[in-house]
């Protein structure tokens, strides 16, 4: 089936996949071809793609949406980073900045934005460090 991950800055991933796991809002979601049509919210986390040779690639993605069809998955998210592209230092700094921002008094919206930034950075770091 076809997997397509699109961010506002362009198409991040477009590939054939045999199996995909997504960070659904209700927990991790594994998708094989011929999945029942589904639309779901995604949280910041890990997206894993297994191609037909069994090769698995990991990506850290931000919160967003997935539209699943029997032959195709479309993921809309604000950020998608391949594991190899994750800059650990930058993610760490982003996390610290977000934590710092959360300590200050802010409007609801600012808090939401900081929380989202924190979740994204945390997802990137988790993915990068797990495979050590």
């Amino acid at each position, binding site marked *: 089936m076809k997997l397509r991950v*699109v961010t*506002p800055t*362009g198409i991040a991933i477009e590939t054939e996949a045999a199996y995909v796991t997504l960070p659904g809002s209700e927990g991790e*979601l594994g998708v094989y071809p011929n999945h029942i*049509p589904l639309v*779901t919210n995604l949280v910041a986390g890990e997206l894993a793609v297994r191609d037909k040779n069994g090769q698995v690639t990991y990506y850290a993605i931000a919160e967003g949406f997935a539209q699943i069809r029997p032959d195709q998955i479309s993921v809309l998210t604000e950020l998608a980073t391949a594991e190899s592209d994750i800059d650990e230092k930058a993610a760490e700094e982003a996390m610290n900045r977000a934590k710092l921002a959360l300590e200050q008094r802010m409007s609801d919206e600012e808090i939401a*934005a900081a929380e989202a930034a924190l979740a994204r950075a945390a997802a990137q770091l988790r993915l990068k460090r797990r495979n050590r």
Partner: protein
Amino acid sequence: MASTREIRRRIKSVKNTAQITKAMQMVAASKMRKAQELALAGRPYSDILSSTLRDIGETISLSKHPLCEIREPRSDSRITVLVITTDKGLCGGLNTNLLRKVSELNPATTDFVTAGRKGRQMLATLRRSLIADFEFGDVFDFRKARQIGRFLTERFLSAQTDQILVAYNSFINTITQKPEIIRLLPLSGLMSDILTEKPIAHNLTSPEQNQHAQLHSLEYLFEPSHQEVLNILLPHAVNYKIWQYLLEAKASEHSARMIAMKNATDNAKQLVKDLTLDYNKARQASITNEILEISAAAAAMN
């Protein structure tokens, strides 16, 4: 004929102006490239967002969602218009064309929200009801769109307005920008708008079209529930549309400015050419005069 010194002074000043407009043209050109890239890069996302909404619309009726509610026109119906203009001038007729279109709306029932300084100044001079002004500089991020989106959404949901329109310059290409007024809220009818929106890269759309008949019959499941999905998806779609409008307006602005400055530079160069010709004529005339005087004097002495 003006004296040679005067002409020389004018040539100098026109050359200076040309240098300035040339520099502004270069700056606008580089900003234009970036803005155009951004505006075009966002299109696949907005396309998939739209097709997702369209597909969902096949399964469940979106019209029940508050953001899609169409209100019957009443005698006191009000509309709100988000006017996206530039902050600075020197971009040809870009703002004027847009504002001319905007001023055709009935001022008695229309409230205005502006993004960009030119629109604010203009609407304030016209004494229209201006309820909010958002600033967005040359560099802005998605948060800006979210901020504007939230303001407009709240206004719509609290029934202070029955419709929200967006007036902006849509970016067609470097030479052409088209002032447009488009409905943002309510979202219903949006589905048909979306269908007619510019198609993006063909490799994305063609496989979909092949299977379209089959996809139409798909019944989607929603996780956690369709309510919750829509509660996030629809506001996000609104914000994203605003974001795309802002990007397009920026791309239009820099393109228009680049062209305006290019014309100014070309005009200045032509002017310098003409003035140089005048200058040479004047110089030659004075030389001829001098020779005439000398030879006349020599003739008189003999």
